[in-house]
């Protein structure tokens, strides 16, 4: 959280510094900016007047355009955790103040600006093809900062930190002390040439204790160059395995995060939490708690977004309260399918994700295939993955035979740490849990990751 009192002197003088950077002499500056008052009065500055490039000119046609802002999301109102949950400032049907990213790719300027105070959690999931030196393509993500509607007293910058990206220069790492961050109303474009397939995560790294916990977190993964070849009966893979051992038929991302209601309430109510008192009141799977985790997806294909005429999200059918939590966690599959699960944890506690009755094979960890340097296979089978903060795991399971008599068999995927699999409600199973539904057949091919196929 930025406090204005810390910074005005620096901001005022920063604008003077602009003069030399922009090759505009001081006399010209004074003419343009209206005199000395502009030099000392930070609030009167209009930066783009004098810059050689407008903020929007940072890049043309990014592959993805993300906006950081604040907003509201929904968590079950029972049990109440007064005064923190539900937040009495929350507009119905929402309960919880968040910071978050939105996908504003392709929106008009007006539509984009409309998204202030309409953040989502988790952040838009996206993916990139592995960089191919034979056919080099840059993947560009432009980030803008729409500001915080509820906290105009803050002027926090934002960044995009692609967590786990190897051998990146600080300029594109999104860590603000070693490089730069994006102030309100400005833009910055990150360029990626991902060389290592696997599952990663991304988040804002500005004051990240706060910005990460407030919800500026999501999952990103890299598809291997091997994709499209037919190896071992598959054409889609998690890694360049050479033998099809990481091939799959359908794929689901499981992004883990947490909500400590006191800290979310504190940001909304202009208070500061004591972070060493941290506790996870709610543990989330793709931004929701069970049974909301099995509610339908909103529009979650980042490259084919569907939005309303104002550019806003469209709530999943029958769930207006999940308008800003578009990612479903329901796993639908056919018996015999190879199903890929991508786990990433940006909560602050270790989780123990368990598949009851189904064994997973761990084929990757932290965007690294389970192979020693000499090729030794280090993959292993388990039903429980202990996933620490900042870790990712790639697992594949074979969907068991359909038993019936129902249309599908249900297996639970849940956090074995039961304090993370409830909503603090008596007898309630919730939190980081979802269902795996195995059909005899008929589940269609996925159009995008986490697609239900039915």
């Amino acid at each position, binding site marked *: 959280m930025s406090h204005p009192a810390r910074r005005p002197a620096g901001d005022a003088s920063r604008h003077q510094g602009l003069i030399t950077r922009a090759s505009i002499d001081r006399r010209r500056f004074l003419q343009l900016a209206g005199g000395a008052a502009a030099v000392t009065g930070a609030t009167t500055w209009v930066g783009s007047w004098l810059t050689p490039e407008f903020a929007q000119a940072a890049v043309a046609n990014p592959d993805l355009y993300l906006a950081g802002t604040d907003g509201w999301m929904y968590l079950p109102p029972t049990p109440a955790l007064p005064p923190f949950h539900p937040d009495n400032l929350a507009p119905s049907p929402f309960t919880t103040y968040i910071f978050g990213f939105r996908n504003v790719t392709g929106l008009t300027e007006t539509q984009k600006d409309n998204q202030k105070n309409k953040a989502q959690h988790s952040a838009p999931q996206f993916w990139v093809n592995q960089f191919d030196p034979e056919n080099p393509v840059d993947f560009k993500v432009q980030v803008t900062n729409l500001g915080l509607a509820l906290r105009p007293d803050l002027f926090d910058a934002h960044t995009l930190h692609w967590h786990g990206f190897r051998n990146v*220069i600080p300029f594109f790492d999104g860590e603000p002390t070693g490089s730069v961050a994006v*102030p309100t109303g400005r833009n910055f474009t990150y360029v990626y040439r991902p060389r290592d397939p696997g599952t990663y995560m991304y988040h804002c790294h500005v004051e990240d204790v706060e910005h990460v916990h407030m919800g500026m977190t999501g999952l990103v993964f890299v598809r291997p160059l091997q994709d499209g070849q037919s190896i071992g009966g598959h054409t889609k893979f998690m890694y360049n395995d050479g033998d099809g051992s990481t091939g799959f038929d359908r794929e689901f991302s499981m992004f883990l995060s947490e909500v400590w209601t006191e800290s979310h309430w504190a940001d909304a109510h202009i208070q500061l939490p004591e972070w*060493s008192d941290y506790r996870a009141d709610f543990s989330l799977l793709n931004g929701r708690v069970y049974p909301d985790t099995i509610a339908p997806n909103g529009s979650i294909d980042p490259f084919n977004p569907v939005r309303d005429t104002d550019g806003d999200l469209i709530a999943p059918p029958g769930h207006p309260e999940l308008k800003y939590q578009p990612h479903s966690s329901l796993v639908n599959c056919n018996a015999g399918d190879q199903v890929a699960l991508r786990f990433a944890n940006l909560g602050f506690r270790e989780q123990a994700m368990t598949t009851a009755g189904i064994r997973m094979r761990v084929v990757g960890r932290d965007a690294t295939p389970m192979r020693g340097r000499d090729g030794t296979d280090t993959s292993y089978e388990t039903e429980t993955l202990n996933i620490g903060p900042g870790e990712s795991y790639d697992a594949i399971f074979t969907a068991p035979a359909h038993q019936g008599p129902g249309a599908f068999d249900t297996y639970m995927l849940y956090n074995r740490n039961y304090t993370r699999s409830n909503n603090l409600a008596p007898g309630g199973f919730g939190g980081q849990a979802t269902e795996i539904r195995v059909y005899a057949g008929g589940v269609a091919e996925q159009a995008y990751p986490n697609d239900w196929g039915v």
Partner: protein
Amino acid sequence: MTTFSNVIGGTLHGRTARGRALFVAALALVSAGAATLAPITSATARPPVPPSPRVGIACTEGSGGVAGEPIFNLTTKTGYISLPDGNTAFMWGYSSGFDDFQHPGPVLCVNEGDTVTVILHNTLPDASSVAFPGQEGVTADGNPAQPQFNGGGTMTSLTDTAAADGGTVTYSFVASDPGTYLYESGTNPEKQVRMGLFGALIVRPAMGADFAYNRADSRFDPAEEFMVLLSEIDPYQHQRVEQGNSFNMNNYHPRYWLINGRGFPDSIADNDASWLPTQPYGALAQIGEYDATGHPLPGMARYLNVGTEDYPFHPHGNNGLVIGRDGRPLEGPAGEDLSFEKFAINIGPGQTWDVIFKWYDAEGYDPVTNPVPVTVPSMANEEIGVFYSGSPYLGTRETLPPGIQTTNQCGEYYIISHNHALFQITSWGANMTGPITYMRIDPPAPNDCG
């Protein structure tokens, strides 16, 4: 056990002296099996002590003068450390020889196969000890080191103790396996380890000090060897101990988390920084850019966790290659390589992880020949970090606007590493502190980094 209150009377040395003459004297007495140490009143003719490196592991070497038989004196002392919120904490610690209090204890560096002797001198009001997890065949005063029990059959210590207020005990073991180890109090460890009685022990392999293990693929650049010793503090426990009161561990609640005994930004200060007189170990990882010919060897980070839960430590910009854990290389029975890369080093309590790492600009960006493929926004449209050079390019600096302060010296890069249980990078209200450090990448030589 022996008493030594007469030994230390009048012979306290400064930190830099490291009391080597005393080590030698003590060795002679120990090897003679003496039950009581004679008073030592002169400490002349000490050999000069080489200065610690500014960054990286600052080894304390054994003394004794006999190759393969290093001797370390450790003295338990009390003192204070500085914390990032301006607070101080009362601590217990192992000091090197008879030096002043330090935190954490000295980094003991020995070679594989050495017969290591550690003489503990206890000035605390409680009995104390040193346990060596990962070492086998440890003796105490010549007998196998054993858990201690009181007359009622209740265990009082995990290993033999030195009595309160002046007792000593001499431990010995053969350092049979290279790797990274903890040493820590085995007596009331829920109190004494928490109070700071811990340190790192490094056993270097027969292949040489530039190897982590006896494997050719464990080689690293010895100029780029670092310690990442992670710990935590509940200030109320320390206050209770300072006041001589008991502390109910059911109320234990850490408020500080430290790296090498410091919190950020102290963590990136030099070793032996003058303003941190009791916290000698920095955590800045200063390395050169990987280059297949010019700088082919990786750096080495030795992670240790003396806390109470897993710490997920996240180095940006590189995946560390975990090549060993708990003093054993990650290899199969036929020597198969079982190492694995991680971008989150999720290290458990009491564990040590050995990680080699390197960094290079995968794109080889250059301001002239290979510029970043975006228009760099004007600085007025960026918020500028305190370590930023003003330029995306390694070795390039740009004039920053007046009033913007940077600590950047020569266009070097700073790439952060930090605990990703993010509530733990705070210090009882001071956010963005605690276990944070940086990988500093200097431009290729010649440079003007000083």
